[in-house]
């Protein structure tokens, strides 16, 4: 009862804070890719309102609502977080800041970082001052990530890094990179990896953008030539970086699976169909849309269930592979349907739907492919041999 009242009180206070502080221009929801605020040293705010909104939220810890206050968060419980999202949606407010720091590195540092590392790296993420990218994949190490070869040698007072990463999203825009490197070449492949933090301004780091089928070039090749890294920039134990990497991947997968609603604009499929010229009259489209609606609703509830489960102490664990697989496959179906409903209208490059549709094809590749997710489920959940 008491908790209930507290939540009511929390909602009222939050609502009036949001109404007073969210600039009008920031009340257009997640309008599209260009409305995202990624932050970072070189970030060009798309409007003064975007900056005001970020600064005001950061001051309250609301860019990372569930992180502890000491590290830039608001320390919200799961119930409070739910209310926060509901109230944000009510105002149709934009997410003030999105970043790999928030989704991936933050949770890993909270779990594996030293107190000093947390104090040094987390608050700048929360304030949107430092932008991070993820250096996992290499030309020879994709699904078989643990086969990575980027070399990291102990030179006494520093580490020396040499090698190449690929598909590094936003490497050309990021300030720092969290990377997996090989610190022991003789150990079994999972046991010689470390998780290091590298300043992209370090001497010897270069990037080269790669163009995607959607026309955008958000990712890069990243090269390390004799890059010196201070000793205190390893997270977790040296040669045990795989533990950190896996933990982080769990968060990445949850983030990607939850991104479904975002990519489709979160709109009910019925509305999408009604706007199209064939409307609800094409039996094939209608039946696919109905099936998709059933599956999407049940999936959204499943995301809720796993959040509830995580909160009540039962971890999500390997089920994150299920969420990633189901969420990304649904998202691909959704955009296929959007394209089919729109017909030739959506074929114009400037229309926006085609790039979105093409982008969704990466969902079931990035962060571990659908096939890899199914293998994780078969081995770790079902205990199948081999």
């Amino acid at each position, binding site marked *: 009862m008491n908790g209930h009242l507290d939540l009511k009180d929390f909602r009222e206070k939050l609502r009036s804070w949001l109404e007073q502080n969210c600039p009008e221009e920031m009340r257009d929801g997640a309008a599209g890719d260009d409305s995202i605020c990624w932050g970072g040293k070189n970030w060009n705010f798309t409007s003064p309102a975007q900056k005001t909104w970020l600064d005001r939220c950061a001051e309250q810890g609301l860019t990372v609502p569930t992180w502890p206050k000491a590290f830039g968060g608001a320390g919200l419980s799961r119930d409070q977080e739910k209310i926060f999202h509901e109230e944000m949606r009510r105002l149709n407010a934009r997410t003030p800041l999105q970043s790999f720091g928030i989704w991936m590195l933050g949770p890993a540092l909270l779990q594996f970082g030293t107190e000093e590392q947390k104090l040094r790296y987390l608050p700048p993420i929360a304030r949107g001052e430092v932008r991070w990218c993820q250096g996992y994949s290499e030309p020879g190490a994709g699904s078989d990530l643990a086969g990575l070869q980027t070399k990291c040698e102990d030179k006494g007072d520093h580490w020396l890094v040499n090698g190449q990463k690929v598909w590094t999203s936003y490497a050309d825009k990021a300030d720092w990179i969290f990377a997996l490197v090989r610190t022991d070449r003789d150990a079994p492949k999972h046991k010689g990896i470390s998780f290091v933090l590298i300043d992209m301004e370090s001497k010897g780091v270069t990037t080269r953008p790669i163009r995607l089928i959607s026309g955008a070039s958000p990712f890069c090749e990243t090269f390390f030539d004799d890059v010196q890294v201070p000793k205190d920039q390893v997270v977790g134990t040296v040669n045990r970086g795989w533990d950190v990497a896996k933990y982080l991947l769990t968060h990445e997968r949850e983030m990607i699976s939850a991104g479904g609603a975002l990519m489709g604009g979160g709109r*009910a*499929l*019925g*509305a999408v*169909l*009604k706007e199209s010229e064939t409307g*609800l009259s094409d039996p094939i489209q*209608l039946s696919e*849309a*109905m*099936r998709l*609606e*059933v*599956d999407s*609703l*049940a*999936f959204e*509830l*499943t995301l*809720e*269930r796993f959040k*509830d*489960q995580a*909160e*009540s102490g*039962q971890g999500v664990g390997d*089920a994150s592979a*299920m969420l990633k*697989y*189901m969420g990304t496959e649904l998202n691909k179906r959704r955009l296929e349907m959007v394209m089919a409903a729109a017909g030739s209208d959506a074929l114009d490059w400037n229309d926006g739907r085609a790039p979105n549709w093409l982008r969704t094809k990466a969902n079931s590749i990035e962060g571990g492919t659908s*096939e890899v*997710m*199914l*293998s994780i*489920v*078969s*081995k770790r*959940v*079902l*205990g*199948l*041999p*081999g």
Partner: protein
Amino acid sequence: MTKLVRTEEETLLADAARGFLGDAAPVSHLRALRDKGETQDSDLWAQMAQMGWAGVLVPETCGGSEMGHAAAGVLAEEMGKTLVTSPFLSTAVIAATALKQVANDRSKESLKQIAQGTMTYALAIDESSKFQPDGTALAAHREGNGFRLEGQKRFVVDGGTSDRVLVLARTGDDKSLTLFDIPFDRSGVSRVARPMIDSRDAVDVIFDRVEATGDDILGSVDDAMTVLKPALEAGQAALAAEMAGLASGAFEMTVTYLKERKQFGVPIGAFQALQHRAAHLWCETEVTTTAILHAGRKLDEDPGNATLAVSLAKARAIQTAQLAVREGVQMHGGIGMTDAFDMGFYMKRARVAAEWLGDYGYHAAQVAKLRGF
């Protein structure tokens, strides 16, 4: 709403049910009944009543255990795992929910008897090959102070073995429907057995100028839905839970077989083609599990707005159960096709349960309608 994770009580209930049914009603129990030409085991139902299952939705004031819809879902799911045949859905879920909407002495008396396990019910809606309550043609003509029921009902599940029947009848030329509560031994009521593929009880019921009075009406004349809608939704949610249980029962058998059966010198579960299909199936069952629990919670906590949740659960359960049994047979190879092996029972029950109380198309259309299609 209560969280979408099972509460401690729900977990305990599931464990207890699994323990009991594992001994009292494994699949071999259904097989034995079928081989004897029977569809129900009255001793089993008496035991279930003793454990409070028959009264799962009956108010404590009428001697019930009043555990609620989420709990009824937990029980139905466990029954689904071993294909338990019992009057649970027709009587303890559907009839009890209908009777609860009416607060008169007669309905209270019926609820008491349901909880004790001494009265069973069937629900008679269908007249064509599909579930379509609005299309009801069976007529209840006004005659003197009462009515005469004339017409025929099909696919009346549990109708061959139960004491009473809830029958939906047309009382006006417009859309007026009325729900009657009639004993099967009333003069003019006759039943024709329909041997079903799932080896359970279903009959056609013929109403030949059957006399009924105002006392036989459940709820008000020309207003069946106030009583029937909650009863149908409770039944659909519990049936969805049964189907989810059925899917996980079939799935467990399949995964076990993947680990045991050897070909080419290795367990067949080492083949990635099978691993990925099994993994996909597991993912589908997880998503369906959510929809089931969510429907139970909605019925308990916000029953006036549960239609979307219930139809979502039934649609998902149908899709998943059918996938589970198709994959179940295929991954067992030849043995999956034999009557001596249990998988066929799962496949046949899934087909019947998919049709009962609305098929995939019916429930997906409900979802679409409520989501603005």
